[in-house]
């Protein structure tokens, strides 16, 4: 009915190759972005910003990075937390050691350093695949944990190994209230998401997907695995590293290596698996599922308990949260192994055919 592309004729190559060829999609995306930039700041309170939206935006960015590597290039990584840590600590060192360093540049340099480290840890991917590669990237995780705990230079010789930043500002724009922080992260995410979407549609993205689908065949038709794999590692680590720097600077403001532990790596991998491998949209779904759902459950359970007149203890809620969350993961993986993004596209297909299901 509403979602139907009849009558939308493409008369030029540019129109045919645009990011969202269907007009409804285009308007929906524009609408969502405008909504996020304009309406959300008017609607939500500080708690939503600080505890839910900012973490969601930053982890979406990280999930996007992981999705490029795992979903598009097919290289399983368990080192995402490590690249976040590299991004965070590199940005921190650039920020405090270089006098007058602009925040934006620190964050991007953090991402850039993370990209370099990503290339180094991506080298094993040229020889090993699948689960073995996952183990190799796990080494990155333990290595960075060790580096940031043991080498005091990286943490500016802080006595406890904890570092912090404050008085953040971008060209006079103070990042001191949740609204500004939210807008800052949102701007980052919008630019990076557009970048990712376009990259996956371009030659490099097609190379990644060819490698993912069958690397020998890809090599035969003239794709260099060295370039394709390492570029995927670099781009992915850049995204993840920038997300790590944002997580540290904007969300936590004071952090320790434990903020980027192996748990974080697993969390990011689960996000892309649940959200949908090889889908930009899926990264957002996955991040929402993993970031927001536990908090919603945590807050909803006592309410439900009140409704039926049962008082659930704090520990009980916490346990129930894990049980329900785990249950939902299994449910979604059985019902839709291709992730939430596939549900989304199935929904869109149905809408196209509606009201005449095939």
């Amino acid at each position, binding site marked *: 009915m509403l979602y139907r592309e009849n009558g939308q004729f493409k008369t030029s190559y540019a129109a045919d190759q645009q990011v969202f060829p269907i007009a409804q999609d285009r308007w929906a995306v524009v609408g969502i972005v405008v909504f996020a930039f304009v309406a959300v700041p008017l609607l939500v309170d500080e708690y939503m910003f600080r505890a839910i939206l900012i973490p969601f935006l930053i982890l979406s960015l990280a999930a996007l990075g992981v999705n490029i590597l795992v979903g598009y290039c097919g290289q399983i990584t368990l080192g995402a937390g490590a690249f976040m840590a590299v991004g965070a600590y590199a940005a921190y060192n650039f920020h405090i050691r270089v006098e007058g360093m602009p925040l934006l540049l620190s964050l991007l340099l953090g991402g850039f350093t993370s990209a370099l480290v990503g290339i180094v840890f991506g080298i094993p991917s040229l020889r090993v695949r699948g689960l073995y590669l996952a183990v190799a990237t796990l080494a990155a995780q333990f290595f960075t944990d060790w580096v940031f705990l043991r080498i005091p230079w990286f943490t500016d010789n802080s006595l406890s*190994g904890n570092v912090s930043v404050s008085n953040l500002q971008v060209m006079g724009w103070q990042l001191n209230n949740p609204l500004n922080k939210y807008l800052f992260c949102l701007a980052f995410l919008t630019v990076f998401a557009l970048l990712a979407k376009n990259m996956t549609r371009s030659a490099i993205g097609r190379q990644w997907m060819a490698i993912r689908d069958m690397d020998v065949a890809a090599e035969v038709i003239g794709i260099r695995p060295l370039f394709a794999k390492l570029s995927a590692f670099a781009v992915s680590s850049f995204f993840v590293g920038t997300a790590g720097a944002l997580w540290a600077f904007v969300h936590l403001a004071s952090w320790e290596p434990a903020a980027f532990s192996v748990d974080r790596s697993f969390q990011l991998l689960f996000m892309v698996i649940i959200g949908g491998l090889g889908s930009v949209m899926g990264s957002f779904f996955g991040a929402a599922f993993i970031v927001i759902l536990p908090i919603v459950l945590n807050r909803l359970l006592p309410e439900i308990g009140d409704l039926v007149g049962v008082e659930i203890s704090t520990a009980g809620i916490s346990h129930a949260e894990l049980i329900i969350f785990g249950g939902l993961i299994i449910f979604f993986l059985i019902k839709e192994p291709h992730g939430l993004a596939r549900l989304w596209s199935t929904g869109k297909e149905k809408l196209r055919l509606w009201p005449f299901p095939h």
Partner: protein
Amino acid sequence: MNLRKLALTASLGAFMLSAIASTSAVAATAKEQFFPVLVTRTGPIAPNATPWANGFIDYLKLVNTKGGINGVKTVFEECETGYATDRIVECYERLKGMHGGATAFQPLSTGGTFALTEKAPIDKIPLITAGYGRSESQNGAVFTWNFPLLGTYWVGSDVAIQYIAKKLGGVANLKGKKIALVYHDSPYGKEAIPVLEELSKKYGYSVQLLPVAAPGVEQKATWLQIRQNRPDFVLLSGWGVMNLTALREAQATGYPRDKMLGNWWSGAEPDVADVGEGAKGYSALTLQHGAERNSKVVKDILAALYAKGQGTGPKEDVGSVLYMRGVLSAMLGVEGVRKAQERYGKGKVMTGEQVRWGLENLDLDQKTLDAMGFAGVMRPVQTSCLDHMGSSWVRVHTWNGKNWEFPSQDWYQADANTLRPMVMLASGKYAEEKKLKPRTPEECNK
């Protein structure tokens, strides 16, 4: 999946989101002082953190049975953190505006303290970290909103060395001795290091640092090193399951337990009970109090709450070491409010800013403490702008296989001559990094 299901899922999602929005807007109620309680009732820390939370809440309930704080009732709200810094931040954001605003936060996590230290000045909510947190935050001129009341890890390290010196028969005998520190590899564990190293220069002992990765269940390599090096003393800075593992490993290694000294987070019943006789002789510092089952405040709690079935936790835990720490932590917060009321109006609900003044001018003398039922539990505490700690007394208790007991009634006091310059140096560095101007004495008196 058909359209109906999709619509169902979407509306369910919308319902969940609206639930967050609705619960975060809780109306302020009059005459209630709100105490947020960050708890860790699940995960590897739970056995230790649960009694703390129960003690904390029981004390708040006890205050209400006695008529509140000059008539102002206490209310509390729990939030489970699982000892994870990001969840602590989420809980902080969730609770800080409830019931008209939080009185003070007590995160029970050093990592959490670091994160909240950056947030508390903006929200104007004091941070009480009784016996943990950042040691340099003792300097209230720089750390306006932090209150590491009763002691910091630096106090702990200094007293540990005093205790060892006493055992050896004088500080002169420390020369050439080997002291190993087995610590939780996190900001918490690392806090103990600077003072140990500073004092080693003075006394000529050597420090061996043995980090243990969180949560601390894997310590085979650590204790192998101890077996090889045979240090004269082992200091333990563990938390939760790490303490239990350390004592098991010590038993397996055959390292004498009476040469081991834990800090005050490594010396409670959950740390040793499962090892039982195997931990006999193991000593730990105390944050003044030990297990205080005979104190008046515990008897009050048992009579006023547990006898009526209103207790928060199991009755056996009441009066245990960490339970008492929770009671003390809550008491300090309540007394901060009481002190603030003296200035801003008795019987009124205090804001975080007013409570901050109250905590900074806390003056609990022995008579007041005795009247509240803390006789024999703790000594007087008096804070000021420059000293947000207020007291640095420590005792040492020993596990006899069944209970924690004080073998001697010795009280140790941390040496301010050693610690004060370190506190000033570290807090000065922090102020410089943050471009903060330390408060002048005039600003302090405002």
